[in-house]
C-alpha cells in the first residue's frame, strides 16, 4: 500500500466533521446570495472579468438578429432563456410538481444505442442529444416532457414514515415523430455552479487514487474518461451528473449550445439536426455567438465562485451528525477533504485544502435511480458523487431546490433514502438509526 493510498484511507475512515475550507477560497455567508460570492483571494484586477462573467451567467439571451449582438444567439432550439433559469442564484434546479407544470430548471438528455466517435452517447438522428422544448418564432420546439409521480412510503426505525416520489417521464407534442423504443432518456436538474474551479483543480492523480483505494461495504468508485474537445483526447470526467464533462470550459460551452442554442468557439455549430430544416434556416448572430472573450469571462466567473463555509460546526448535534456520517459510510464517496494541485488556469486555486464532500467518481446507485443510459464509461446505474458543500443552504436559496439527478428528492432525508447499489448499506444504516441520530445526521448535512 503506497503512502497516498494510506493517506486516502485515513481520510475515508476519519469521518471528518465540517472543517472550514481554506479561507482564501471560501466565504462565510449563509444568505440567499451565498452561492454568488467571489473567493476572497480574487484580485482586484480580476474583478471586472468576474463581473463580466457574472453578467453573462445572469443574462437573459436574445433571439437573433438583434442590435445587441453581444447578448444575442438564443436558439433556434433551446430549453430556457438563461443560465440562472436552471441554476437559480447559482444553485440547485428543481423538478416539476406535476404533469401540468413544464420543466423550468430541468432537461432531458437523449441517445440511442451505440457510441459516438469519441465513446460518448450516440445522439438521435432527429432529436439530437437533448430534448429542446422551445424554438424561436418559426421553429417548432422538439416536444414536451410531462413528469408523473408514483409515490411509496418507506418506514424508518422508530416508526417514522417518509413518502418518496418516483418520477415517470412521458414525451408529448413530439415534432419529429414518436421516440423509437430504443430511445434512452435521462432527466437532469441544474446543479450548483459554485466551487467548481476548485474541483477542476483537484489533480487527476487524486481521482485515480480515490478510485483505486479499497473502500468498505462494497463501495467502489471509478473515473469516467470522456472526450476533451479542445485537447482532442480522453481525459477524466469530473462535471455533470455522470461526470461526462472534462472541465468547466467544455461544461459551459456544452450547456450554452445544448440548453440555450448559443454557439461558442468550442462548439461553433447550431444545435440543429439534419432533418430540422426550419432550425437550420433560422438566423444566427455572430460566429460564434458567444465570443472567445465571453467564454473566457464565463469560465473565469465559475473558477472564482467561492464555496460557502460550513456553519454551526461547533454545535454538539452537528458534531454528532458528522460522526454518524462517517459511521454510515457516507464519507466513503462523499469524501470530506481534498487538496487541489497546481492549477495554471487560475493559480489562486492552487494547493488549497477544500471540503467538497465528493470523490468526483462514478458509483452504482442501484436500480431505483438508474436511467439505463450509458454516458462514456458510466453505465445506466452509475452517477457521479455530487458535492455536498453548501447543500444546507439549497432550499433557503431556492425554496423548490431538488436533490438527486432528477430532483425527485424534496429533502435531504429523501435523497439519502433513495441511495441504492453501492449506497444501499448507508441507506440501511440511516433507516436503522434512532430518530435522534437521523436528526443529528441531517443537522450535519444542513451545516455544510
Amino acid at each position: 500500500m503506497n503512502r497516498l493510498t494510506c493517506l486516502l484511507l485515513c481520510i475515508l475512515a476519519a469521518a471528518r466533521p465540517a472543517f472550514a475550507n481554506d479561507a482564501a477560497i471560501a466565504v462565510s455567508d449563509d444568505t440567499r446570495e451565498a452561492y454568488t460570492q467571489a473567493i476572497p483571494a480574487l484580485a482586484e484586477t480580476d474583478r471586472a472579468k468576474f463581473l463580466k462573467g457574472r453578467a453573462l451567467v445572469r443574462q437573459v439571451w436574445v433571439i437573433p438578429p438583434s442590435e445587441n449582438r453581444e447578448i444575442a444567439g438564443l436558439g433556434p432550439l433551446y430549453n430556457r432563456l438563461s443560465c440562472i433559469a436552471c441554476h437559480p442564484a447559482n444553485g440547485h434546479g428543481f423538478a416539476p410538481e406535476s404533469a401540468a407544470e413544464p420543466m423550468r430548471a430541468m432537461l432531458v438528455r437523449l441517445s440511442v444505442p451505440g457510441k459516438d466517435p469519441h465513446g460518448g452517447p450516440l445522439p438521435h438522428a432527429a432529436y439530437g442529444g437533448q430534448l429542446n422544448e422551445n424554438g424561436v418564432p418559426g421553429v417548432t420546439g422538439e416536444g414536451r416532457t410531462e413528469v408523473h409521480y408514483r409515490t411509496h412510503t418507506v418506514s424508518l426505525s422508530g416508526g417514522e414514515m417518509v413518502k418518496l416520489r418516483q418520477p415517470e417521464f412521458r414525451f408529448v407534442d413530439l415534432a419529429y415523430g414518436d421516440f423509437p423504443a430504443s430511445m434512452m432518456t435521462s432527466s437532469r436538474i441544474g446543479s450548483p455552479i459554485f466551487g467548481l474551479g476548485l474541483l477542476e483543480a483537484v489533480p487527476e492523480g487524486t481521482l485515480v487514487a480515490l478510485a483505486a483505494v479499497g473502500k468498505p461495504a462494497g463501495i467502489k468508485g471509478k473515473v469516467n474518461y470522456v472526450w476533451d474537445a479542445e485537447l482532442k483526447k480522453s481525459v477524466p470526467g469530473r462535471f455533470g451528473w455522470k461526470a461526462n464533462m472534462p472541465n468547466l470550459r467544455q461544461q459551459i460551452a456544452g450547456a450554452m449550445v445544448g440548453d440555450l442554442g448559443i454557439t461558442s468557439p468550442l462548439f461553433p455549430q447550431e444545435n440543429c439536426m439534419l432533418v430540422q430544416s426550419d432550425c437550420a434556416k433560422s438566423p444566427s448572430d455572430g460566429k460564434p455567438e458567444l465570443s472567445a472573450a465571453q467564454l473566457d469571462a464565463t469560465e473565469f466567473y465559475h473558477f472564482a465562485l467561492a464555496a460557502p463555509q460550513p456553519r454551526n460546526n461547533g454545535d454538539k448535534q452537528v458534531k454528532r451528525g458528522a460522526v454518524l456520517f462517517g459511521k454510515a459510510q457516507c464519507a466513503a464517496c462523499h469524501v470530506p477533504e481534498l487538496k487541489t494541485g497546481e492549477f495554471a488556469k487560475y493559480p489562486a486555486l492552487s494547493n488549497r485544502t477544500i471540503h467538497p464532500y465528493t470523490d468526483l467518481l462514478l458509483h452504482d446507485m442501484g436500480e431505483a435511480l438508474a436511467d439505463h443510459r450509458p454516458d462514456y464509461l458510466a453505465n445506466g446505474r452509475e452517477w457521479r458523487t455530487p458535492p455536498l458543500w453548501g447543500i444546507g443552504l439549497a432550499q433557503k436559496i431556492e425554496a423548490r431546490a431538488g436533490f438527486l439527478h432528477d430532483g425527485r428528492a424534496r429533502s435531504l432525508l429523501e435523497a439519502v433514502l433513495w441511495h441504492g447499489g453501492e449506497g444501499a448499506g448507508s441507506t440501511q444504516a440511516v433507516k436503522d438509526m434512532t430518530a435522534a441520530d437521523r436528526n443529528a445526521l441531517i443537522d450535519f448535512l444542513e451545516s455544510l
Partner: protein
Amino acid sequence: MKTANWMLALCLLLLPPLAAATEKVVVITSYPQEVISQFEAAFEKKYPQYRLEILWRQSRDTMNYLHQPHSPVDVYWTPAQRNFAQLAKEGALRKLDIDLTGLPKRIGGFQISDPDGYYVAHETAGYGMAYHPAELQRLGLPVPIDWKSLTAPAYSGHVVVPIPSKVGYAPMLVDTLLQGYGWEQGWDILARVAANASLADAGATFISDDVGSGRVAVGMTMDFFAVSAIANGKPLRFTYPVRVGYSPAHIGIFKEAANLNGARTFASFVLSDEGQKLLFHPDIRKLPVRPAVYARKPEGYFDPFAAARLASYDYDVATGLSRQELVSALFDALITRQHAVLKTMWSAIHQAEQRAPNDPRLQQARNHANWLPLTAAQANDAARQQLFIQRDSRTESLEQQWNADIANHYAQATRIALAIAGEKP
C-alpha cells in the same frame, strides 16, 4: 352498457391526469430572469392552459424588432415607459379592456399610468440611497435623509453616482432631482454630490455591490437593487429621500395579438392581488401599484401611496421622458467629462467657504461652478431634444462648445475659490 360506461368513467378517473394542450402567450420583456421566473411559474400554475413564450429584448432593440416584420407578439411587459408611449402613439397597442378597479393612475403627484388607457403601470421602483450602516458608522457619517445630505463635504469619497448615459435607470433619477428641486438647484445638487462621488457606468458593477461590500458607503440607486440585496442578506439599508422619484413599469396588449384572451388573462394576472404580491418576493422587491396589497406587505416594506400622502410633488413624466438624452448629455458635459476638475473645484470652494464665508467673491465662484449651458426652457425645446436623440455633427459641435464653456467656468470658479482660500491657483 350502463355498467360499462361507469367502468370507463371510473378508469378515466383513476388514470393520472394528462396535461391539456396549452396555448402560448407571447410576451416581450426586458425583465431579469428572477422576475420572469416568478411570474411565469405563478401564472402557468393558475392558468395551466397557457404557456408564456418570452421574447427578451432591451428597450431600443425591442422597438427595432417591432418595427421589422415579425411573428405576432401578444403582450408588452417591461420597464420602458418611453417605448410604451411611442407604441401607443404609433397605434400599436389596444386600449386595455380589462378590469382596472383598485389601480390608481397616480402616486401622489406622479403619473404612473397612461391617461388614455393604452398601457398601465403594474409596478414601480423608487429612487433613493443605499447605504452601508457599518461603514457610515466607521466614518462617523450620518445616515443621509435627502439627496442634499450627500452634498456635505464629509461624504467626499464615500458616495457612488450612476452615469445616466450609461446606466439605464439613471436618467429618470437625475430628472427627479431636476423636477423635484427645479432645474438650477437640481443641477447644483447633482454637481455637488458628484464632486463627492465616484461615477458608476453600465459595464462596472451594480451600485449595491459596491455599497454592499462597504467599498463605498452610500449609492444613489433604485430601491429594488438594494432592497432585494437586503432581503437576501446583504448588510445594507435603503432610504428614500423626501422627494421620492418613481420609475414605473407597464403592461400593454398589442393590436396584433394572436392570443387576445391569453394576453388579457396575463395582464389581469400581473395586476391582480396575487400578481402584485409576487413583487414582494426577495428576488424582486418592486413596489406594487395596487394599494390594497400593502396591507399584507413584508415588515418595513416601503408604501409609496402612504409616502405620497405625507409629502408629494408634481412630476411631469412627459417632460422627463422627452428630454432624457439631452439631460444625459448635459450630465456628461457638466460632470462625467469634467469629473476630476469638478472635484478639485468644489473642494476649493468648500475650503474658501470655511476660510472666508463672507467673502463676496464666493458668490462669483459659485456662479461659475453652477453655470449651465441651457435653461430649463431650452432643455424642453423639442427641436433641441431631437438633436440629442438622433445625434449628428451638430450635436457634436454643440457638445464641444459646452465642453469649452464649462471648462472655462470651472477654471474661473477654481481660481477664485483658491484665491479666497489663500492658495495659488
